[in-house]
């Protein structure tokens, strides 16, 4: 659906996007993830034909965003970051106007407006003036606008920014329900959000794509450094002696906890799961175990690690 190759965008004296390439298949929900100023919005603006690229090409549904921009624009629904709307218009009137602009006929636009208003929970504010709506409703108007002409590709720039938790949940549900039928490209800097909604994530930093994979794979990539935490009632020496004999444990740390319990933090070799082993050990030595957990690096850790500025310089 989207093919981007060697895309670069330079503003006067600053490179916002530098030589990125990625592809998005039809029906995917892809999250563009990165801190502020990573080049997410610029990428989206180029894909939505608002800005030209300095070099490189981007194609949407097989059409070039620069040379066949009208064809591309017919196929996308784009919601910019600030979600600009006309404050003096009424919700229904605005959506109808937008539907007309996107080339829908009179009858069809009326049908579609009614549908998307229900889909986005706007049915009872249709006659309200947009300027007087709450932020949550305005965001939903922007979403409804992006959906109104049933575009093949929906580009949403920070769709949940500034919403309260309930509204965020509703928006996420809505976006998830679009999977399969539409291709969705979402940008966000909130990681759990991308984790929940997206089938694939592109992590951007400093105008480059640093990682592109499914949330599970990204997590697995870091699994090598997962840790086992066990709280065992035994003497510290006995534990140390025991752990040092096991080859699967790369590193261990035993510290005393309250009572007779010792807190053991074990780093396994090659990302192995040590929990069954610990259980067997405890059984053999008649130790009491009150906690046995595997601590996985969350995507948040990965994200922070990948997008940390100093690490980035070290990698280069």
């Amino acid at each position, binding site marked *: 659906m989207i093919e981007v190759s060697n895309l670069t965008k330079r503003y006067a004296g600053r490179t916002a996007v530098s030589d990125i390439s990625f592809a998005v298949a039809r029906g995917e929900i892809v999250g563009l993830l990165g801190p502020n100023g990573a080049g997410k919005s610029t990428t989206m603006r180029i894909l939505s034909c608002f800005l030209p690229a300095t070099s490189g090409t981007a194609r949407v549904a097989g059409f070039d965003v620069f040379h066949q921009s009208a064809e591309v624009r017919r196929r996308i629904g784009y919601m910019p970051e600030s979600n600009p709307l006309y404050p003096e218009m009424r919700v229904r009137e605005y959506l109808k106007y937008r539907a007309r602009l996107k*080339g829908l006929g009179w009858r069809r636009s009326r049908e579609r407006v009614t549908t998307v208003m229900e889909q986005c929970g706007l049915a009872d504010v249709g006659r309200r003036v947009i300027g007087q709506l709450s932020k949550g409703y305005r965001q939903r108007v922007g979403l409804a606008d992006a959906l109104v002409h049933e575009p093949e590709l929906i580009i949403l720039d920070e769709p949940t920014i500034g919403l309260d938790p309930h509204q965020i949940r509703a928006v996420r549900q809505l976006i998830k329900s679009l999977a399969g039928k539409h291709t969705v490209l979402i940008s966000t800097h909130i990681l759990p959000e991308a984790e929940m909604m997206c089938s694939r994530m592109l992590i951007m930093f400093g105008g480059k794509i640093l990682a592109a994979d499914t949330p599970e794979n990204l997590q697995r990539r870091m699994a090598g450094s997962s840790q086992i935490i066990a709280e065992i009632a035994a003497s510290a020496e006995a534990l140390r002696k025991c752990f040092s004999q096991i080859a699967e444990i790369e590193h261990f740390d035993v510290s005393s906890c309250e009572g007779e319990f010792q807190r053991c933090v074990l780093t396994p070799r090659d990302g192995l799961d040590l929990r069954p082993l610990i259980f067997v050990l405890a059984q053999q030595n008649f130790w009491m175990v009150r906690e046995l957990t595997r601590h996985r690096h969350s995507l948040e850790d990965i994200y922070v690690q990948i997008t940390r500025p100093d690490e980035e310089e070290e990698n280069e």
Partner: protein
Amino acid sequence: MKIFWALLRRELASFFFSLTGYVIIAAVTLLVGLSFVVLMLTLGSDSFTAPVTELVYSTFFFWLIVLLVTPIITMRLFALEKFSGTFETLMTTPVSDLQVVAAKFAAAVFFYMVMWLPMLACLFIVRHFTNQPGTLDAGTVGGMFLGIFLVGCLFLSLGCFASALTRSQMAAAMIAFVLGVSLFSLGFLARAIPVTAQWQSQVLSYCNLFDEMDDFARGVVDTRPVVFYVSATFLFLFLTLRAVESRRWK
């Protein structure tokens, strides 16, 4: 075409469903009324042979209105959309730049013509009370409104251009005002230049908006000023289009 009508409707709605629209109409009505009073006083004191419409221009109110009001009408068109970000949502729909420029300009011209309607009422009052059909016939009124229309098109296209250049409405109004006043004063320059300087004075005399308007007011429609106004309007609309497109190559 469908898209053009949708755009035009929205632009007209933003003129007529907003307070600014009515403030402009009220201000113009007041100025037209004042000029009408001056006109009446002149008619009352001297004997006058020229058509009444010509008097309207001799009061200077007309040019004051055109020069002051057209930048205010047009300043909003592109600058506000750029400022609020709706320009981005607008330009990412399958509308062409030409449709957007044409719709915005057409809406501004429509509003401008509506703004002048009170003047028509004033003229009918004159006609009613003087009982002299000769002073005010369909030809002179038609010629006058054609003149108002053409002058308006030129100044509004100038305003469109100014508005497409910037994201600040104030800056747009200022640029349009400066461009408008410069164009207007070119006509006076033509008078100042001695007749011996041949081509300069001829070129400048085409820009002599003031005298041309007198002709229209007499009901004389010369093709030369018509061509001048129409081509200058198209020039500025073309420049507006380029300015709107400039985001693609800037």
